[in-house]
């Protein structure tokens, strides 16, 4: 018993409702301000060596996935070929969309009090983390991550932190 007008109205309401509920598509989603993607690869390499093995954040079972040469690959076989731009992109998205609003606030504050982020707290061992303390506060790995968030990447710290050496005598 509906008139053409009421059908159109209903359709409009349904459409508006659908658009209203839908989030932005992945490629359209933005975080402002966000740490820079351009300076992310050294940070990703550090994260990969500390956190991205196949038994940790290189696992598809994890919501924070880190992609790279010796771990999870987007397309290909693990361990073959260097980390690709697509993999850096995927890891970047995994990092910045963990706590987007908090991350934006930290970035806007020039990187002050980065412990507001779960990522930093877990890496420092200040919050429950199955992998334990991977980047103690003040370590090269910690400086790498927090300097990137602050917009002043400490590239030498990233390079040092990306190298993981076995104990003496191994």
């Amino acid at each position, binding site marked *: 018993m509906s008139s053409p007008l009421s059908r159109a109205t209903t359709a409009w309401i349904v459409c508006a409702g659908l658009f209203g509920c839908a989030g932005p598509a992945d490629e359209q989603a933005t975080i402002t301000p966000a740490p820079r993607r351009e300076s992310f690869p050294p940070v990703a390499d550090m994260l990969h060596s500390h956190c991205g093995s196949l038994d940790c954040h290189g696992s598809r079972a994890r919501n924070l996935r880190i992609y790279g040469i010796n771990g999870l690959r987007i397309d290909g076989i693990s361990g073959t070929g260097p980390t690709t731009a697509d993999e850096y992109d995927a890891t970047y998205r995994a990092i910045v969309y963990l706590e987007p609003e908090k991350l934006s606030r930290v970035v806007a504050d020039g990187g002050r009090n980065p412990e507001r982020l779960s990522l930093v707290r877990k890496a420092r061992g200040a919050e429950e983390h199955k*992998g334990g303390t991977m980047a103690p506060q003040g370590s090269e790995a910690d400086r790498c991550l927090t300097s990137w968030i602050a917009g002043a990447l400490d590239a030498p710290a990233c390079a040092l932190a990306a190298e993981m050496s076995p104990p003496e005598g191994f």
Partner: protein
Amino acid sequence: MSRALPLVLAAFLAACGDPVHADAVEALGPEADGVEPGPLHRPGQPCLTCHGGKGPGNMEFSVAGTIYKYADSSEPLANAVVKLVDQGGPSTIVGTNCAGNFFVQRVDFDPVFPLWTRVKLGSIDIEMSTPVFGAGSCAHCHSDPPTESSVGRIYVAPAGTELPGGSCP
């Protein structure tokens, strides 16, 4: 009645078990024909699924796996030496059996990760390029075939390399 309640609750919880673990065990499938449960069984499988402390395997392992001769062959590497060194420095050495299997009981070595590993056999001495961060089953990351989530089986030499024999009787 009040005394019976904890027992009833315990029985209920025991009956429920851990469905994720049960599924993981079931997914391993049956034993291979002619191989009894023991040190030689289930090469290449994630040992700690059953031997990680939740059963049904009796022995609890901290690290265990299978070493092969070549990437594209299921020939086991017997008599190799596997060295494991943990973050704090404690280490252990264990050999592979005729199935290529090795295992370390948790009572003997309970590593603090990350864990560095190397495999030796004669002049072959290979260090794993990345440390292990938490999985005691080598097959967790070294399942075959290689994929985006696996580097493939652990092997020590290119195909065609002469290596000592050794197969299970």
